């Protein structure tokens, strides 16, 4: 259903290309600058990996990267498990439940700042210690919702009678899950996990509120925030480049696994 390129079609196409320019030029500029010897955008003094070297030598950033990895991986594993089970439970029930849908949709739209203060208030009321573990627990909240949504779209195309077929052929509930259900939905589960991983790696506000005091539970986005807020150092471009490329890779893989991840 392609249009013959009339004047209107040409205008539309030009507009679309401009939108891509608008979306990618700022990111592109960051990436290019990360290789600038001089570090700042004032002058190009030649290509260099100097700032990546500086980044590798910076212990604070290494610590933050490690923290981020711990938070992202733990919260992804927990959220993927719980979100997948939820999606299976909801789809198998086959009875629409508006309250349940709203509850599972809520974490995606509640403003980060509100969820952040709510969790902080809750943790401090019950005198729960703050640190990486509280960040993990908080990240699981929104990650469950995203994993649930991704796996659920996968299940829409899932023929539930294969579960009955497996039982009919003599398998028990556990064997059926391990040998039939999980392999069939696995691309969706993995896609959801990759999405959860990037969201957790990138999340700033909630982590910032529930991290507690002290540098021991600083994550990368918190580091990036303070670098932006309190004096831009050239290393930030290198760091931003690495983080962005990580996200793009994970998202690309996620989309490859399950066509509907980012587009639903």
């Amino acid at each position: 259903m392609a249009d013959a390129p009339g004047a209107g079609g040409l205008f539309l196409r030009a507009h679309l290309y401009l939108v891509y320019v608008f979306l990618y030029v700022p990111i592109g500029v960051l990436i290019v600058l990360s290789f600038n010897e001089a570090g700042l955008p004032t002058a190009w003094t030649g290509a260099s990996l100097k700032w990546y070297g500086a980044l590798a030598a910076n212990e604070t950033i290494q610590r933050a990267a490690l923290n981020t990895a711990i938070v992202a991986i733990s919260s992804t594993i927990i959220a993927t498990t719980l979100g997948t089970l939820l999606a299976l439970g909801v789809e198998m029930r086959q009875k629409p439940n508006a309250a349940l849908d709203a509850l599972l949709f809520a974490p995606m739209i509640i403003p980060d700042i509100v969820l952040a203060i709510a969790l902080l208030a809750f943790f401090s009321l019950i005198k729960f210690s703050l640190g990486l573990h509280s960040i993990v627990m908080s990240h699981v909240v929104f990650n469950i919702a995203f994993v649930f949504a991704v796996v659920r779209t996968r299940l829409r195309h899932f023929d539930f009678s294969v579960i009955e077929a497996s039982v009919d052929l003599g398998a028990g509930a556990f064997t059926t899950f391990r040998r039939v259900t999980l392999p069939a939905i696995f691309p969706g589960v993995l896609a959801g996990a990759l999405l959860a991983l990037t969201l957790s790696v990138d999340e700033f506000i909630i982590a910032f509120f529930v991290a507690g005091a002290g540098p021991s539970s600083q994550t990368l986005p918190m580091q990036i925030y303070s670098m932006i807020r309190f004096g831009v150092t050239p290393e930030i471009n290198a760091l931003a480049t690495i983080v962005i490329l990580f996200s793009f890779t994970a998202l690309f893989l996620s989309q490859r696994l399950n066509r509907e991840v980012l587009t639903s």
Partner: protein
Amino acid sequence: MTREAATVLEIRNVSKSFEAVQAVRDVSLSIRENEFFALLGPSGCGKTTLLRMLAGFEKPSRGEILLDGKDISPIPPNRRPLNLMFQSYALFSHMTVRGNISYGLEMENLPKGEIQARVNDILETTRLTEAANRRPAQLSGGQRQRVALARALIKRPRVLLLDEPLAALDKKLRESMQLELKRLQNEVGVTFVVVTHDQEEALVMADRMAVLKDGVLMQVGSPHQVYEHPNNKFVAQFIGVMNFFDGETVDGGVKVKDEVLLGAVPPELGRGQAAAIAVRPERLEIANGAMPADHNRLSGQVVEIAYHGLDVTLSVRTPISEQAILVRVSANASDRFKFAAGQNLDIVWSATHSRIMAS
């Protein structure tokens, strides 16, 4: 089959309701050893629910199901020696054909060698050897259907349950698969219970069939019995095409308006009762001169002619029926008579072909 075979599966007064809906009402049936049995009915008649109760995926609300004389209701579906071939086939898309077929035997923890031998065997029987290492997505519709069949058959079930096994195939393939299923059943010697909404399929394949409507069993019998001697109007209409004339019973027939149509009145219908006299279109003939005394004769006018290639169907308006009656004429007769719309003719049929039933 001269001697009555033993009963394998007995369904006793089984009912099933889902909340407010009663899907199956007090159905009793026995299915015999090595029989090809069809459960036939329009969609929503409860035939699939009945099948799922046999497989163990639904529990009867009332009644019991006996396999070889033993109540199987406490046995979960994965322990029942019955296997189900699903309407969607429900193939495991992440496994190869071989993986799908061997799955059920792996669940029985059989030795590897035996599994392999039995899989190879059934691949041969179902002509799937070439496709053994392919995934379901790479198969044709007919191949997928055979994988589903092989996967269930390899378990050597006491009874194989098939839910609309041919519904997903196109018309040509469906017709050849009807005979193929029948051949396979003979070869493996397993009792088959097939659910279908397609009356032609049931007639061609089944040794015996049960007709269901709104969860109620309407008639059980061989295809010949059910087709030639329908118990009631529903069965008569659902299977094949039937012409009806409504009237009331008199001695030796039914009086329709002023005309008495001859036929045997079944003993349960007394005199003067509202009844219909029915006759199949292929039993009607165009009058050609004199006719024997035990024949019915009606004059009418052709309103429409439908050409089927194999034969021709005439719609004929008669003075005693609101509805035009259908007459099936062979191609030869059609050539001879050169029918045209508006033409007047007489229709005759032998009283032995009249069926009288309560209306």
